[in-house]
């Protein structure tokens, strides 16, 4: 699946390189100045915080068209989990951020609707702990139960993401978006006594690759005039 995803990305990038950009050339002074900045939040995190008793979190998203079809994007969020386990509990708490670039494949869309593929680098600092009890047989006749508390005081983790998604203008400055993420290349540090189960921003760690999804609502703040032709400017 991952190889197919990479192939799609490479194909898309090569097509993009051959495609004819119909943007008018901006002056070099404004070349990297975005026409607008979108700032939003993840509705799924908010909904999940209200609807579940094991997750509390929020996420702020921002992107800006820094050069033609390329968008600089950044996410910052909080992620707290508290799982009730069969033999105890597990909790994690931390902040995370992701930065990356999106490539817009609907550049000619008059409403600035966006279908994008992108790449992110994620990082989190967090704490996690587990309290549990388990039974073991020390000898045939001697079965003992022990209560254990384990924690990681200051672990951190990094990962990469391939993303795909949509941004759709719904009303004036208001936008809705959906972003799907394939998370990979997860690396962790500082997990000594406890192997982290749910890492903020990444998710569960028992799989090499992990999926994620966001439904977002954005407000777009115009920064400068867009010199692109707007065929359906009504």
């Amino acid at each position: 699946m991952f190889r197919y995803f990479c192939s799609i990305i490479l194909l898309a990038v090569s097509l993009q390189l051959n495609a004819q950009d119909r943007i008018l050339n901006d002056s070099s002074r404004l070349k990297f100045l975005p026409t607008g900045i979108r700032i939003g939040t993840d509705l799924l995190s908010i909904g999940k915080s209200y609807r579940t008793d094991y997750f509390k979190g929020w996420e702020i998203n921002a992107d800006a068209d820094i050069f033609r079809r390329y968008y600089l994007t950044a996410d910052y969020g909080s992620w707290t989990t508290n799982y009730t386990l069969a033999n105890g509990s597990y909790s994690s708490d931390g902040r995370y951020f992701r930065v990356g670039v999106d490539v817009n494949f609907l550049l000619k869309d008059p409403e600035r609707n966006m279908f994008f593929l992108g790449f992110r680098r994620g990082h989190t600092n967090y704490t996690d702990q587990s309290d549990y009890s388990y039974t073991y047989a020390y000898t045939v006749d001697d079965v003992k139960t022990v209560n254990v508390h384990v924690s990681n005081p200051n672990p951190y983790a990094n990962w990469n993401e391939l993303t795909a998604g949509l941004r759709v203008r719904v009303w004036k400055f208001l936008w809705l978006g959906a972003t799907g993420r394939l998370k990979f290349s997860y690396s962790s540090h500082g997990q000594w006594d406890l192997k982290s189960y749910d890492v903020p921003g990444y998710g569960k760690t028992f799989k090499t690759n992990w999926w994620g999804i966001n439904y977002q609502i954005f407000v777009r703040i115009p920064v400068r005039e867009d010199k692109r032709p707007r065929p359906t400017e009504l």
Partner: protein
Amino acid sequence: MRRKVTKNTTLRLPESRRSRRRQEKVYLRTKNSLLRAFLFVGLCVLMSSCFDQGDCVFTNSNVVRFDFVNIRKPSTLIPVVVDSIITPLDDATILYKDSVVTASATYLVSLDPTKNETEFIFYWGNRVDTLVLTYTYQSKVLGPDCGTLPFYNDLSIKYNTFNTVLIPNPEVRVNFATKLPNQNVQILL
């Protein structure tokens, strides 16, 4: 003669079409049905993965497997009679005692899960040998329905009075299907 075609590079619609479209200001539009299908399938896959909590594959154990093997051919087991295996910690707990005198090449005894080392004293024949094993452990959450369990790793020899002892597998685990422990310690005779 080549026909000259004027390309609409400004993306402006003809006047007649512009006036017709003036009434239909539609923001949510996706013309590409293939793209819609791709998005629908993608969202279904993503949503289904959100409910994956992990599998209850219990492979942890605190039972170490000792095998007596031939020093020239370690794959050959040598049955020996071990009277008892005790640990001097915690008032000399008897980990194994041979109730009926039988020869066996494999003995299963427990590590002390509350410590990072366990001393084993083997009484076998007219000999007494001591083996001290050290290890680390890491707790791992298998899932909400499975719980957290300790996993013992990095098994190594701290002290030994046997002739030769090897650790072919430093992870203390059991096979999930057969429930048989890994071959952790080989005592070469």
